[in-house]
């Protein structure tokens, strides 16, 4: 069998555009799901009964539905229900974000609850308000402690962007599928796709791992 990688080089611009969309979608999803998840985690721990219950229900629901189903539902069913048509990119963004945020909520909750009560008492004894205690004492330590889990969530989020190909978001996976079909070289194109995702994800996970090892002592009380 002859391997021919020339279609990849000939269509590099086409693939590069896909990579750009993948990176954009990944960055937006990571930022939004972390922000939403951290806020949700705070609400899950400190909220009133109604807020806590709502967030718990949301987390349990999202953990019980495949992200693929969420994407397809938001793209195909939501417009029929709500009358609003979201473009494919933003449908994928919304689906991945609300899905991943559920996991971030649980991670944040675990981090906050792992902080020793004495830390809060020490901050109270200085006269800090609840808000100040959360911002200055609890949250920084909690987030450092859960950094390894956040790292896995970030890599899962980046990988999940490939699922956006099912609703024709022109990200890297979709572009690869198109090129593979047109060039009749699926082995080369998809092998190269694996290589591209690896090149994005491997350094990212190593970086977060190193960051954690450097910061870990700051979260130990």
């Amino acid at each position, binding site marked *: 069998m002859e391997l021919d990688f020339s279609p990849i080089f000939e269509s590099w611009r086409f693939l590069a555009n896909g990579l750009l969309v993948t990176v954009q979608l990944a960055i937006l999803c990571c930022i939004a799901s972390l922000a939403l998840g951290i806020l949700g985690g705070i609400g899950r721990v400190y909220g009133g009964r109604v807020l806590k219950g709502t967030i718990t229900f949301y987390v349990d629901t999202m953990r019980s539905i495949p992200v693929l189903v969420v994407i397809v539902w938001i793209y195909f069913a939501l417009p029929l229900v709500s009358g609003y048509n979201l473009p494919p990119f933003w449908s994928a963004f919304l689906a991945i974000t609300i899905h991943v945020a559920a996991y971030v909520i649980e991670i944040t909750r675990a981090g906050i609850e792992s902080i*020793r009560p*004495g*830390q809060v*008492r*020490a*901050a*109270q*004894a*200085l*006269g*800090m*308000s609840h808000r*100040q205690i959360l911002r*200055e*004492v609890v949250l*920084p*330590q909690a987030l*450092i402690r859960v950094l390894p889990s956040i790292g896995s969530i970030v890599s899962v989020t980046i990988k999940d962007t490939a699922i956006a190909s099912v609703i024709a978001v022109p990200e890297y996976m979709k572009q690869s599928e198109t090129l593979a079909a047109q060039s009749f070289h699926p082995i080369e194109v998809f092998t190269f796709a694996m290589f591209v995702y690896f090149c994005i994800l491997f350094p990212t996970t190593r970086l977060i791992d190193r960051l954690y090892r450097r910061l870990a*002592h*700051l*979260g*130990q*009380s």
Partner: protein
Amino acid sequence: MSSQVGQQIRGAGKKPILSYHNVMKRFGNFTALNGVSLDIYSGEVVCFIGPSGSGKSTMLRGTNALDPFDEGQVFLDGSPLPTSENEARHLRRRMGMVFQNFELFPHRTALENVMIGPVTVLGTSKDQAAKAALKLLDKVGLADKTQNYPANLSGGQQQRVAIARALAMEPELLLFDEPTSALDPETIGEVLNVMKTLADEGRTMIVVTHEMNFAKRVADWVVVFERGQVVEQGPPEQIFDDPHTERTRNFLSHLGWHG
């Protein structure tokens, strides 16, 4: 009772800075404090001693409303302790607290730990807070450790940073909750020396302690707790050399104290 006589001489015309009247505290079925009445005067070092679980630490946590009393009244400078969380926050600024387990903030350097109170709570500028923090760390003998994180400090050093952190709020009153109980024997001395210096400056201090030598040497007034009640109070000479109650004698002899 002669402890009453002692108290009258001790109070001599002054108003107490803290006055407890029949204070009660329960945790479920357990009565932690069962009717404690006590006066503390400005500039005094008062040591709370007694067996574990006798209510000493509960007194401290009630005093700065971290864990408010259930019944009874407490007057600070003549006004009753607040009941709302908002007012309690203002109250806590007036009292520095030092904990058994130090409770330094691990994500902050020694200097930042001392600065965090004034900067966050009082809105002091960072420059000003850093200058004050440097002075305080120098005072507790840690001028060379300002940039260390708590993980890189010994227990005794951490506790001295914690004392500096409490002092940074310029409190009227210092509360020490078994400050040396979690320390290695060789670092206890350095913490007690810092506390002795503060006592010599005339600061008002309440110290829950098992260090009887410190209590005898430094305290102006010693209060013996047992089962949530005050069994005896008086000057250290009375408590350690001539205890008036059987229960004080028993407690001290359990510790191997033969004053």
